């Protein structure tokens, strides 16, 4: 069977996956601190902004699509991905484990980003 987009497992880190969220006004933090934290990454002009975020285990990343067309945030290793995020939509993933996770947009693979999950 032909594939239209990379076939990915649906295992996700944590339990915070969602799409089309109504976003509360959250800070544009790039680094988490003491409590579980949320970091926002904009999908803007076919780029992830910021391209790299650093968080702690348990923190969440929310991707917000500012472009006209759908995007995803999809792990290169196939471990996690957001749903397809239409214009204006957002998706959330919680990262439980430490590591450095490279990701792309499944539809526009030149869009690349990294989530670094570190302790301390």
């Amino acid at each position, binding site marked *: 069977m*032909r*594939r*239209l*987009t990379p076939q990915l497992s649906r295992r996700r880190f944590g339990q915070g996956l969602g799409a089309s969220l109504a976003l509360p006004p959250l800070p544009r933090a790039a680094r988490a601190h003491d409590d579980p934290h949320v970091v926002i990454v904009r999908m803007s*002009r*076919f780029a992830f902004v910021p391209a790299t975020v650093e968080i702690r285990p348990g923190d969440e990343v929310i991707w917000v699509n500012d*472009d*006209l*067309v*759908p995007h995803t945030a999809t792990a290169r290793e196939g471990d996690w991905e957001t749903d397809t995020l*239409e*214009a204006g939509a957002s998706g959330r993933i919680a990262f439980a484990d430490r590591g450095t996770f490279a990701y792309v947009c499944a*539809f*526009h693979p*030149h869009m690349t980003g990294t989530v670094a999950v570190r302790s301390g």
Partner: protein
Amino acid sequence: MKTPTLALAAAMAALGMAADAGQPMNDLQIAHTAYTAGGLDIRYAHLALAISENDAVRDFAQTMIRDHSAVNDAAGRLIAELNVTPEDNDLSRALVDGAAAKRAELMALTGNAFDCAYAANELGYHQIVNQTVAETFIPAVTVAPLKALLEDALVTFRAHEAHAERMVGGLECAG
């Protein structure tokens, strides 16, 4: 021999500034042409999905359908909001005629020959359309929301042009 893509380029150059006898295109004509160009690329993409077995070509085609549909949906919402009717014009008609000729050419091909021809056409098509949108349409448009939409759309179309360039580079095509 002049290919349909080259013919399209000539039509865009000749008509981009003058949809009717020396008159610059108005907002409604520009909206119509931009919408038409997106729709035509969706048709090319459906043809690619019907013929091509190449994953890169098929992925590109899926992206064209997804993205151009999203842009045209946004255009449709704006048109409804502004309560206007886009105007058909010589440039839109030239695009439609050129695309029909190109589709006929593509439909006669299979395998790698199709993939190469489709990929080359996508690159050429986006180059021509992007140049026209950037240099002719956006400067000429007077309604702010339409200008903003065209500017956002151009970001998308330029990403497609770069994607098409990579697709062409990844194929083994003669010449």
